[in-house]
């Protein structure tokens, strides 16, 4: 293309020099790569009378339990749980819509409580049980909440659906027979632009009657 432009050749070469792998290879293994200098232990500083660890700004090793499986990655401490799930572990069910805890499309469970994965640092999710929408199917069968969504036309474009499914599952676990008020409250943290709230409410009512 533009052979006079240094940029096209420069950066990949630099990467190769540094890591001994091609840029493509580097990208593939980024995250668990030896190419990234690891910080073995966090630096400790004194703050407010006690010693606190300082992580970063470079990548630090982290360990997660997601859907019952162990995951390891080297991530910058600023990386959110949502970005870790989507970019590192290829769990793309939770969606990035607002990235600032407004819409609930990224809802996952942390120790069985709903959290907005976009507004939680991955580093804080270590040692917790993270549950994403990908784990809800029971073998070949849809989870009762998912089945009820299908039967009640509770999704149109579907982009908010994984977040709603998780929020509904959490609510049904807590209130097996939810009142209309429970449903209103339980769904208040999630937005849908297609206007499928009616279908979602019917779906929940159906699960409440049948039992999850």
């Amino acid at each position, binding site marked *: *293309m533009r052979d006079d*432009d*240094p*940029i*096209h050749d420069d*950066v*990949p070469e*630099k990467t190769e020099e540094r890591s001994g792998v091609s*840029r*493509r290879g580097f*990208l593939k293994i*980024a995250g668990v790569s030896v190419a990234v200098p690891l910080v073995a232990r966090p630096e400790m500083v004194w703050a407010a009378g006690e010693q606190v660890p300082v992580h970063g700004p470079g990548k630090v090793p982290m360990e997660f339990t997601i859907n019952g499986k162990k995951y390891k990655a080297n991530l910058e401490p*600023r990386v959110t749980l949502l970005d870790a799930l*989507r970019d590192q572990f290829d*769990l*793309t*069910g*939770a*969606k*990035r*819509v*607002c*990235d*600032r805890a*407004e*819409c609930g*499309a990224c809802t996952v469970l942390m120790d069985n409580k709903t959290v907005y994965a976009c507004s939680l640092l991955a580093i804080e999710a270590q040692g917790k049980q993270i549950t*994403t*929408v*990908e784990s*809800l199917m029971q073998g070949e069968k*849809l989870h009762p*909440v*998912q089945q009820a*969504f*299908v*039967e009640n*036309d509770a*999704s*149109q*474009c*579907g*982009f*908010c*659906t*994984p977040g709603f*499914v998780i929020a509904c599952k959490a609510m049904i676990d807590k209130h097996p027979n939810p009142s209309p008020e429970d449903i*209103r409250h339980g*769904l*208040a943290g*999630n*937005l849908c*632009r*297609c*206007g*499928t*709230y*009616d279908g*979602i*409410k019917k779906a929940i009512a159906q699960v409440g009657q049948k039992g999850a």
Partner: protein
Amino acid sequence: MSDFSIIGKRTAMVDAAGKTTGAGKYTDDLTLPGMLIGKILHSPFPHARIKRIDSSRARALEGVVAIVTGKDAPNPYGILPVGHDEHALALDKVRYVGDNVACVAAISEAIAENALELIDVEYEVLPAYFDPEESMKAETDLIHENKLHNIEKDYHHVFGDPEKAFGEADYVAEGRFIANEVTHAAMEPHSTLAAFEIDSHTGKPGRLTVWSSTQVPYYLQHKLSLVLDMPMAQIRVIKPLVGGGFGGKSEVIPLEIIAAIAARAAKAPVKITYTREEVFWAHRGRPRSIIDLKTAVKKDGAITAVKARVVQDGGAYCSYGVVTILYSGALLGALYDIPNIQYDGYRVLTNKPACGAMRGHGTVNVRFAFESQLDEIAARLNLDPAEIRRRNLLKPPCVTINGLRVQSYGLPECIQQVVERSRWKQRKGQLGKASGLGIACSHYVSGAANSIIRSDMPHSTVNIKIDRDGGVVVYTGASEIGQGSDTMTAQIAAETLGCSLGRVKVVAADTDLTPIDIGSYSSRVTFMAGNATLRAAEQVKKQIASAAARKMNCAPEDVVFREDKVFRKGDTQGQSPTPLEPTQAAVSVSGRVEGQILRGSLQQKRKEEGQKYFLTFEEAVVAAIDFHGALTGTGSYAPPPEARGGKHKGAGVGPSPAYSYSAQVAEVSVDEDTGEVTVHKVWAAHDCGRALNPVSVEGQIIGSVWMGMGQALEEEMVWKDGMLMNPGLLEYRSPSSTESPEVEPIIVESVDPEGPFGAKECSEGSLAATIPAIANAIYDAVGIRLHESPFTPERVLAALRARKGAKPINLTEGVDPTAPRRFREHGGALWFRGKGPERHPLDPARREAADAGGDD
């Protein structure tokens, strides 16, 4: 109804399960090996000349692979052939805060973001225009050099003799209505992944594949070809799942081209996904509109003339603007019988993000004004608001004064239904203090009869292939965006072929695989792609019928397809003379031939068997493939010439092969202390011709009412000096589950003579009725006429207090929401005390600031 086995049945969407499990993939869920992340540098100024861009510091940053600017792809483009005024990245000028200046492709999002900070751009700030009526007076510093007075386009239509009709009227209502700007706010941010294959002969970038969140993959392919100077055959556009469009993805959004430019420069796949703030800047929503409306009536309520002057604040680029301003005038017709119409429409450029198409494209704001004014007229003439609408019905089949052909017309029944269901006659005016009912009607096109690129090409083409095992694959270019396009396609194919829905697989919206379809916009898919599917299926069916007829010893016309079986006519009604379970028939084909020893292959047995009373679908397919070879069919749809409208300038927009109709009653209460309006229930009757899938139709009606309610009560893009003040999902308030009125969708079926199985539009038309229905209900509740949307507590309270003569609430710039004069710089309670960029000398805000001796 019972004639159908699949049409009209409540059917779950064919892709629903994948959406609930997270398995369904949207563009941003995709990755490719070696993929880079692109980030775009946006303009901080509403109007400025770019003097210099220096990206050397950014290029030096480790992990940055490519930086592209306007020079890397200088060809202009735009969705309309008359509006090629955009560049993917600005060439010489930026025209709104958020305009695209440069793009960085880097190995991570964080590095790309850091690199943006290191790009040095020198701007020469130019005076900017924010108010369309001021912008129309501009002589200098034009937004586009070739658009005099910053007017993108103006149209002046006169049908009949409006002057005479106004002279002879018994009563003339007149008023100015203002509808503020709203945006789609689809959940899925725009996202594009672009990758070049390396050409094995030349080693240079070769074929381009683009995965994009789009409603119009074929337009994207066309514009990519234009901007990148590549033949279309070298470009493949694939539409993965789309997380909502509502019109916001019905044209080419800059990132879709920028991703490809960056991928070419970086020699690696590049993905760009907008942040939520960038989605608001990309916009293309419904323009702020000033509507001066005048209606003449006779004493009995018959409308004799309408005169409308509409000014749309179109933003900095043409986008769909010419179409929007034409729809606003054209759709004054085809709802009621209006013998005389005068329309003056001005699409004006301002230094804000471009407006485009949004659900109910062009009709919504004018319908708000018209239906509100009709309610005022009814009150004045002491007529029931439902009755005045009945007195102005069309008498189809007919062609309206502005050239729109109306055939099926379910409006009378829609009105009847909502009046009955809401117990309108008993309850209107009887709901007690501060509660009320309001009625309004609307309509919309079932696709445009003339495509935006004028040609005789069919608007939709569909291919069908049937495999030897009876599996049906439908290849359609129609874009599923959540509205149920794939399900509709599968239903029509299955119904026509008389096979089960489970046999049908839909392959959609991949420019390499699927035949051309102009896209999912203006509610055209069911009518046009549906008709194309029907025709393709009928073509295949003919081949199967001729083979089956030979097997059953009858004429091909006498072959009937139903429920996975193929019968002789007369033997049908679901029963064969010798009742046999289809499965039994399939496994023991020749068992019914008495005295024969069964030997040889299944086909041999069939040959020995002689005449049959019915075949299973698989058997019929095998017979057809054995006879004809591979079983394929093609169908296409072009709107008939009679439906394409008149000959006047601008006549191309508005005509449609069929119109949907809607009537709604809203029940509201108003808190007179806070000004808060609560919608308790909306009865929404919609004439969709025939409901192919009632559950989907209801979902679309409810969704439209929701979005209309948002525009009626809360949603508003708030501007200050060209800066969007509320670019977030909480600040831009769309309704949530907590503001949850019950919506009762009522399906009215007028069975259109040209629609597939009689079906027409169902996803947009309802929206336009919701806003005036709520406005009219507010009047019924508390006696105030709001002429400016949305009806926020602030506006309602200001109007209530003014009416009572209580201490007034001064809205910004002293606006009276019952008689607004011009746009306010910011509509909500937000105050902006920043200095802002230089205003144009003509802008009154600048003059006022100067008069007051300083900036606020």
